[in-house]
């Protein structure tokens, strides 16, 4: 058995160019398959870790998935806001332990700006019920204070005490700026691996203040209120984007949800984060499965290439097979030799594929984190992936049986004299 493996290796090495290209094709297909699968898992993990301890998210009536996307994951924009009165009613609900209003819509160099109350830092939880921790500085206190997510601070190189100008609307560039009312960095949060890292947190009053003299998304011509006078104006917001709600007892969640959904003030939507996420996975599940299926097909294509290459080379190797037969190889040995060769290439492809994925995820993880908010772990293989790879090797083995059987037949009919 050992000498057969040695022979298979020497034979494969002799044809290293063609087999090497086939191996590379298999490696790339493995990288693709694992990459798609890993992105899927990491996205699920990232999303489900982004919010915990919040029983309900309340916003204007829209689809639950969309509400979750813009209110929690800062993906897309709110279609409508809810009135401050509605927010106050939720706070007043005797079953509600805490309610934190949030107001979105502005941005800073592509990072979302979120107006909220100081209570946000007390009640918001992520991951395994972890609280937000201020790494340096303090929570915001004044109207024009801002607390940065970890990635905003590192990405833009801000420190506590820096002065920054917010932009109106979401986007990367070309947005009108709130140049007359700059903010001061008061604190910087510890990294969480959630959308919080990419968020600039200001007070609701600050959010109102920068929009005081604005009408319809642009500064009101010929009218402006300088920053130092805004304190004389009532900065209670007219409306907010959403309210994060924690209940005194989780058992009351359906009752409170119904109460909010049937609010007489305006049409509202209260969703349970877990349920909404489940809906989200159902929506994207089809696309995910399609992606996985395509990647799996690419692997099959790679393995077919391997079988084709070995089969095509078999005719030129009939002399070699006859020599092996003459020195005592059984047809069974010839079969093993060929199958071992396919298996060797498949194994090489899988290992190289894993390595490629590791390098790719090391290089791309920061970009994927900032662009899509998916915290990519740089691991070699997870236990689930190991199962996938085992299945892949099994398919590779099955594919290797084809040239193995063909060589077996050839060695039986050829015997010691190849008929060429």
């Amino acid at each position: 058995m050992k000498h057969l493996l040695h022979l298979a290796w020497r034979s494969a090495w002799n044809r290293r160019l063609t087999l090497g290209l086939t191996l590379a094709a298999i490696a790339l297909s493995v990288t693709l398959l694992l990459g798609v699968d890993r992105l899927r898992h990491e996205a699920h993990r990232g999303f489900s870790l982004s919010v915990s301890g919040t029983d309900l998210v309340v916003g204007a009536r829209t689809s639950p998935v969309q509400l979750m996307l813009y209110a929690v994951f800062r993906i897309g924009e709110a279609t409508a806001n809810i009135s401050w009165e509605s927010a106050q009613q939720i706070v007043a609900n005797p079953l509600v332990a805490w309610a934190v209003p949030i107001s979105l819509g502005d941005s800073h160099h592509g990072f979302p700006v979120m107006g909220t109350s100081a209570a946000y830092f007390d009640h918001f939880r992520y991951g395994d019920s972890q609280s937000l921790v201020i790494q340096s500085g303090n929570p915001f206190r004044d109207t024009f204070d801002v607390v940065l997510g970890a990635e905003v601070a590192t990405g833009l190189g801000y420190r506590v005490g820096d002065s920054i100008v917010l932009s109106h609307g979401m986007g990367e560039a070309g947005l009108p700026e709130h140049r007359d009312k700059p903010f001061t960095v008061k604190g910087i949060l510890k990294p969480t691996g959630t959308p919080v890292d990419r968020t600039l947190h200001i007070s609701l009053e600050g959010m109102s203040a920068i929009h005081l003299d604005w009408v319809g998304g642009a500064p009101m011509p010929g009218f402006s209120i300088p920053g130092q006078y805004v304190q004389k104006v009532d900065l209670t917001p007219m409306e907010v984007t959403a309210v994060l709600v924690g209940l005194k007892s989780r058992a009351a969640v359906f009752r409170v949800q119904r109460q909010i959904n049937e609010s007489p003030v305006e049409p509202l939507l209260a969703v349970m984060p877990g349920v909404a996420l489940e809906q989200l996975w159902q929506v994207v599940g089809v696309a995910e499965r399609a992606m996985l299926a395509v990647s799996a097909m690419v692997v099959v294509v790679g393995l077919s290439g391997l079988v084709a290459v070995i089969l095509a080379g078999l005719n030129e190797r009939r002399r070699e097979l006859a020599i092996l037969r003459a020195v005592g190889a059984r047809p069974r040995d010839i079969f093993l030799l060929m199958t071992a060769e396919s298996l060797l290439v498949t194994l090489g492809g899988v290992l190289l594929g894993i390595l490629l994925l590791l390098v790719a995820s090391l290089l791309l993880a920061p970009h994927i984190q900032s662009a899509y908010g998916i915290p990519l772990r740089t691991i070699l293989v997870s236990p689930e992936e190991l199962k996938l790879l085992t299945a892949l090797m099994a398919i590779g083995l099955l594919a290797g049986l084809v040239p193995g059987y063909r060589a077996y037949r050839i060695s039986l009919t050829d015997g010691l004299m190849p008929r060429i």
Partner: protein
Amino acid sequence: MSLAIDIRALRFRYPGAAGDCLDIEAFQAEAGERVFLHGPSGSGKSTLLGLVGGVLQAQQGSLELLGHDLSRLRPAVRDKLRADHIGFIFQQFNLIPYLSVMDNILLPCRFSLRRQRRASEDEGTSLREQALRLLSHLQLDGIEQVSVTRLSVGQQQRVAAARALIGKPEIVIADEPTSALDADRQTAFLDLLLQECDAANATLLFVSHDRRLARQFHREISLPSINRALVEHSGR
């Protein structure tokens, strides 16, 4: 003397063929005997070698190899017999291109534990020393690590001879081993081969259509004269 090869009333027909390809009433080769077998192509040489080598199985008759009746053995056992007791040399392209000279010579020892033992038990030498000794006897000193693709045809045939002889198989079968060589080299090769077969006391079955070489053999046999199938059909 005991018989190395003993063929009686052997008939072989290829699947789907109209008639027999081989029909030999009797053919014997004694241990240590040098037999020269000649015949034109199509007289059944390859088939006979396939039968003796155990990769083909006759439909009738008996073929005994060192007392083992091949026709009554399973294919895997015949493969083992071939590995243990027969060394082959073919007309050309005898060597595995991706193995070194040394690995080519040692190939039979990888498939046969018996030949591995017999090669190394001699004078307490190692396998490699035994291979080097054979190479030296065949005047091929210092080429053991050379790629076989860089050898001349004459060198390749001698390496093939070393491979056939390693581990002292009882039978050496050479199928036109000299036809790719020029006249001078033919003689030199044959001398070396005969000398090594004698040293190992191996039975040599030498197939060739060049009857000038027959002088150095104990016995010369014409295959058409013993193959009765040729009278009725022109087989392989």
